């Protein structure tokens, strides 16, 4: 372990900048976006420096730590504010600050007409700080702070235009769904503390061999719940589509490239937990498998370009989760797909933003068409991202996704066939919906209003897109050459190459199958959408399309099972409180008042009745004395 004193600046700089921009208010309107971008770029610079320094070190010395202060210390519960930068977290640091900086630059132009641009950049910096804390914390509790911090930033950014009630609702939905996941993370931390007496990654890792299997599985399941909340995985997936209410750069940065992949980070970071529990691993692959199909199916029917991309994100993260559930062979592959996905999906979201920018914020793909000619750079960069995501060699997605399909088959036995089949099917559907998206948007005849004047976006916008496009092209090859990423991550993830494990099929066969799936998907989409796209979505469609348009009823389910019963319960409890519990309290009062009213009747004001009572009282007294002395 090396100690470093720079790590804290990674978090502190954007945090301070964010606080400054919020506190100064309108005074910072003129230069707020510049400061925020500069800070983000500086963080990227620090990240690169740290990466280079790490590269020169070898073995265990590669990981760097920085102890800041003792945060919470009660009895045996000691949590320090300490940062840990190892081979895994540096990948994330570079992704977050790198893509983050590009998106800051993009947003300068994209948000230039918004009166609250400064506030937007403040939130972006807040997000960068929280996300870096998430990946740099050296204990689960530090991670948790970042975890909820990115949730807050996501909430603020989704609801950035919260004067629209539906947007505000989308933000709230995202936060609440995330909170359900946070329950999982909280419980995982509590179990870890009760089991091991510590919540640092290192301490938990050391304690795993001594703990009972049930406890490990419980921790694993809770971590998975947390990951499902943050990464929009089944059954907590429903918030991601609505989260597209946020400005498009946010969708690119938070809801595609970084935050939503935090769940994958959590699982790969906790590899020692999942290595020790096959049940937990099984749960992970089930969740990943369901989500990758689920998201892909939704993606086939969406006409809103951002929602289609969101569904795709959900599906791609499903791939990553599935890979990370496959054990040591999968962790590094999951990270590889995460990184390549960070490039191509962010690039495509920015492309979508560019299209919207030129089309007066229109998002309906049925109203696009033929934009490619008018926005050549956007079309080109988007196209490269498209080739990457559907997995055409030698683009980035080919390397990472192909590997996932391969190791899914290699899981062996029935499980291998099911998982491999699912990933192949997913690849075909991905090719279908992405082709549909590209064809509907960029080619064909124009279907937009006369009012719209599509034009290429300014350089500040297309430059980040171009950089990301380069990443979509080259990153896969770079990560894969000589197994570099896998080897790099091996000390942290205990990962090993794809070799080993029960091979169901030769890698070349798998690649062939995957390519065939892609070709089929592309082919169907081309025949269906190359021409004659109706401006209004047709109503005479199959039940499946209808279901997919309704997000496979995820919201209806949540509403029927959680929301409405919850509302009824709340209303019932409010009534109970006022009528029953407070009613009992009032009853006590009523009893006293009632009995007092009854007794008041004998106070009739007639002297003779008072005298009578006196006489009777005296008689009663005498009678008592008589009885007692008898």
């Amino acid at each position, binding site marked *: 372990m090396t100690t470093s004193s720079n790590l804290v600046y990674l978090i502190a700089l954007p945090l301070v900048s964010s606080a400054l921009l919020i506190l100064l208010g309108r005074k910072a309107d003129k230069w707020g976006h510049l400061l925020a971008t500069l800070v983000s770029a500086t963080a990227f610079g620090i990240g690169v420096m740290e990466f280079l320094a790490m590269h020169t070190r070898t073995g265990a010395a590669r990981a760097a730590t920085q102890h800041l202060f003792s945060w919470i210390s009660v009895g045996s519960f000691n949590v320090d504010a300490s940062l840990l930068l190892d081979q895994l977290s540096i990948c994330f640091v570079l992704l977050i600050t790198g893509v983050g900086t590009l998106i800051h630059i993009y947003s300068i132009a994209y948000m230039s007409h918004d009166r609250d641009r400064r506030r937007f950049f403040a939130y972006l910096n807040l997000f960068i700080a929280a996300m870096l804390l998430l990946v740099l914390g050296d204990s689960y509790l530090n991670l948790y702070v970042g975890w909820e911090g990115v949730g807050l930033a996501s909430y603020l950014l989704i609801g950035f235009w919260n004067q629209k009630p539906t947007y505000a609702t989308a933000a709230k939905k995202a936060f609440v769904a995330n909170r359900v996941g946070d329950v999982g993370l909280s419980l995982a931390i509590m179990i870890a503390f009760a089991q091991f007496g510590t919540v640092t990654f290192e301490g938990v890792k050391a304690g795993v061999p001594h703990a009972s299997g049930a406890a490990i599985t419980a921790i694993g399941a809770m971590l998975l719940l947390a990951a499902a909340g943050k990464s929009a995985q089944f059954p907590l997936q429903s918030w991601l589509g609505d989260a597209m209410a946020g400005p498009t750069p946010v969708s690119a940065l938070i809801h595609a490239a970084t935050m939503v992949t935090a769940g994958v980070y959590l699982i790969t970071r906790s590899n020692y937990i999942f290595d020790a529990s096959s049940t937990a691993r099984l749960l992970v692959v089930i969740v990943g498998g369901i989500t990758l199909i689920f998201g892909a199916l939704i993606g086939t029917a969406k006409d809103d370009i951002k929602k289609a991309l969101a569904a795709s994100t959900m599906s791609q993260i499903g791939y990553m989760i599935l890979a990370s559930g496959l054990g040591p062979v999968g962790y590094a592959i999951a990270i590889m797909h995460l990184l390549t996905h960070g490039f191509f999906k962010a690039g495509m979201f920015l492309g979508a933003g560019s299209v919207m920018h030129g089309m007066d914020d229109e998002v309906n793909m049925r109203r696009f068409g033929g934009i490619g000619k008018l926005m050549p750079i956007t079309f080109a960069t988007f196209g490269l991202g498209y080739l990457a995501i559907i997995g055409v060699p030698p683009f980035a997605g080919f390397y990472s996704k192909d590997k996932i399909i391969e190791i899914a088959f290699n899981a062996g036995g029935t499980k291998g066939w099911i998982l491999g089949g699912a990933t192949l099917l997913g690849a075909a559907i991905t090719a279908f919906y992405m082709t549909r998206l590209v064809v509907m948007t960029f080619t064909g005849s124009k279907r937009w209003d006369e009012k719209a004047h599509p034009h290429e976006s300014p350089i500040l916008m297309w430059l980040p897109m171009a950089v990301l496009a380069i990443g979509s092209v080259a990153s896969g090859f770079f990560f894969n050459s000589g197994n570099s990423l896998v080897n790099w991550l091996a000390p942290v993830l205990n990962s090993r190459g794809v070799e080993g494990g029960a091979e169901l099929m030769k890698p070349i066969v798998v690649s062939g199958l995957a390519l065939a799936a892609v070709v089929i998907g592309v082919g169907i989409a081309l025949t269906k959408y190359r021409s004659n796209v109706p401006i209004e979505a047709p109503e005479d469609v199959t039940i499946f399309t209808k279901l997919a348009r309704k997000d496979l009823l995820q919201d209806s389910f949540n509403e029927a099972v959680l929301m409405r019963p919850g509302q009824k319960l709340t209303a019932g409890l409010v009534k109970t409180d006022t009528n029953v519990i407070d009613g009992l309290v009032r009853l006590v009062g009523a009893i006293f008042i009632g009995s007092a009213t009854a007794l008041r009747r004998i*106070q*009739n*004001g*007639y*002297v*003779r*009745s008072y*005298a*009578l009572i006196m*006489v009777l009282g005296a008689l009663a007294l005498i009678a008592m004395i008589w009885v007692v002395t008898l």
Partner: protein
Amino acid sequence: MDISNYLYLSALLFTIGAVGVVVRRNAIVVFMCIELMLNAANLAFVTFSRINGNLDGQVASFFTMVVAACEVVVGLAIIVTIYRSRRSASVDDASLLKR
């Protein structure tokens, strides 16, 4: 003659007085009934004084008479005042305490 007969008489007078207080409405009559009760008690005092052979009871009866005299002064003053203000000597008309 049996000395306890004086006690019976005393009890009888007291009862008549008590019943009178409760049932009559005219303030003067109620007042007289109270006097009757007081004098019934006096009679009992004197009787017991005789039975016990000392003068304590007789002294007590003098006290009672003095108190009764004072009471007559105050009580009659009240009755006269009420009669002046309400033109009635009925006790039921003076049921102001209940409100």
